[in-house]
């Protein structure tokens, strides 16, 4: 029996369906992320678990109890908001102790627990401060401590780090994860940042337009995306639109530029298809004759530590190719707006089956 179970959950707001067919079974202590683009229903699902919204249909069970229509203050669920939502009129200690005070715990017990949590979130001497006297990162730690103080059954976090700047974001997310592990609390984490979801979670739920696209471990999601959406949203698998020139000879065009595959594929000439291309297959520079080349404008160069990720736009509003380059001191990187050529081998691209795009990119990738 799973600890947190959502069964066939659906939520409609008037005519719009925010969430549908949502099924999830999370084990106790599991860290699950909801990942998806803006408006895909992540927050709505989270709010249904918290009790702020009620599903139009379906059930939500926590620890084998049906809580679908239970009011939020009876659910024993901790919530961390993007905007911190600390009570401005209370000190940090009072904020953290609020849940315990509501539960009428004795004063000395509250004090002890508050001190404990301040220690856990690394703010041992900030108890007497007011929220406005803390930095954003500190405030979010307090919010985390506050959500954990009353030992909730489930911890919910809705993009808790997106109001913080990049460096704190990375540090704090590891901290959140280690605290979560330490306390063994079942956690649902909402984010639209794939790196965050992949690096933190036991399992990731990728969502799109109110539906679950795929549920799996970060490894599965990244390496074996089961739908074209997951493939393009998660990881940096390039999914490029192409047009068949001569399928039997493996010829097609991508953004008007000729590409030749090492094998034949199906499709009549002029047909629009999609091609998947892993970033690690793509290299900078034109290379030798016989390899495939694409030329475009450098749209973005971002350092990710040991690698540098480059985005190349093929044409004005055309597709982009993402490629990773190892960061070496001798490396001469293209500048933003430069025209650059990249190359990839003939057996690099995978043609996605247009009729069943959802089917298995997985098989194709395994094949490659």
């Amino acid at each position, binding site marked *: 029996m799973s600890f947190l179970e959502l069964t066939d959950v659906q939520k409609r707001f008037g005519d719009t369906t925010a969430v549908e067919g949502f099924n999830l079974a999370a084990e106790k202590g599991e860290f699950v992320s909801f990942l998806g683009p803006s408006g895909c229903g992540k927050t709505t699902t989270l709010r249904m678990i*918290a*009790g*702020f919204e009620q599903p139009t249909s379906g059930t939500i069970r926590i620890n084998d109890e049906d809580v679908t229509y239970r*009011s*939020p*203050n*009876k*659910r*024993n*669920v*901790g*919530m961390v*908001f993007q*905007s911190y*939502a*600390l*009570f*401005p*009129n209370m000190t940090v200690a009072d904020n953290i102790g*609020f*849940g315990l005070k*509501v*539960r009428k715990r004795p004063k000395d017990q509250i004090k002890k627990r508050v001190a404990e949590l301040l220690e856990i979130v690394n703010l041992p001497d900030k108890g007497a401060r*007011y929220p*406005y*006297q803390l930095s954003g990162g500190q405030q979010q730690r307090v*919010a985390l401590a*506050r*959500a954990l103080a*009353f030992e909730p059954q489930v911890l*919910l976090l809705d993009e808790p780090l997106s109001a913080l700047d990049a460096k704190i974001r990375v540090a704090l997310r590891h901290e959140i994860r280690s605290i979560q592990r330490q306390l063994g609390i079942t956690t649902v984490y909402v984010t639209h940042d794939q790196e965050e979801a992949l690096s933190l979670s036991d399992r990731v739920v990728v969502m799109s337009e109110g539906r679950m696209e795929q549920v799996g471990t970060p490894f599965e999601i990244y390496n074996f995306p089961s739908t074209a959406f997951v493939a393009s949203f998660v990881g940096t698998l390039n999914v490029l639109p192409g047009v068949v020139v001569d399928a039997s000879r493996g010829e097609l065009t991508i953004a008007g530029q000729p590409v030749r595959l090492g094998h034949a594929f199906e499709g009549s000439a002029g047909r629009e298809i999609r091609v998947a291309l892993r970033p690690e297959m793509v290299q900078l520079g034109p290379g030798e004759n016989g390899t495939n080349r694409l030329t475009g404008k450098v749209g973005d160069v971002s350092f990710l530590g040991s690698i540098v990720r480059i985005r190349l736009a093929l044409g004005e509003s055309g597709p982009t190719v993402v490629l990773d380059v190892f960061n070496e001191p001798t490396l001469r990187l293209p500048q933003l707006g430069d025209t650059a050529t990249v190359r990839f081998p003939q057996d690099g691209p995978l043609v996605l089956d247009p009729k069943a795009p959802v089917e298995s990119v997985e098989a194709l990738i395994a094949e490659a």
Partner: protein
Amino acid sequence: MKLSRIFSWVIFILGVLYFLLPLYATLEFSLRTKVPFVAYTNVLFKDPQFAGSLIYSAIVGVITILVSLLIIVPTAYWVRLRLPRLRPVVEFVTLLPFVIPPVILAFGLLRAYAGPPLPLTGTDFGLNILVVAAYVVLSFPYMYRAVDSGLQAINVRTLTEAAQSMGAGWTRILISVIFPNIRVALLSGAFLTLAIVIGEYTIASFLVRPAFGPYLALLGRDKAFEPAAVTIISFGLTWMAMGMIALLGRGSRQRVQVAGAR
């Protein structure tokens, strides 16, 4: 730069004069009696109606504030939280006292409550209830606006949800989270209400209440110097009340801020 400074000082001084000159004139006039200060001693020590009516109005004012807060705060809170589309409607309803003259309100009350099912005009107690009820209505425009702007300044919805997720019910949310965070707004609403109630004339005299407004009017008709003295006294009292509210409004937050800035 320099010129604009001079200009702002000129404006400031003009403003001060505009407020202080009439006050000074009143003060000066109230002291023109043969024996100085006799107008004041007359009012303060020889006229039991002065203190009586002032205390009556103050008590009515305080009760009015409490009732008004109890009605307005939950209403404004709920409208912000759950019925944001109804906000213009509620705002319009609270503005009605500006549209309907107090005379009509007073007449309406007298007619509606003269007989069954709720005969309130027969007894002093009943009339007191009516006057408080009428003042509560009069306070709506000020109270609603003050409370609503206070609520606007805090993130009502997330704060509520945060408190809810920690197990708090509605009463606790209102008392521990919402009220303290809009305290300054509540105080300004309360102060405006008090000022209106203490000076109110029409309804109090129609309902024959021993209030300060009618007393002041009566005094103005019968005496020469005393009205001026009362004006000065009530002005002083008003300032005292304002000072007290400002003191109350300085919560722990501001104190800490001052300490932190040092």
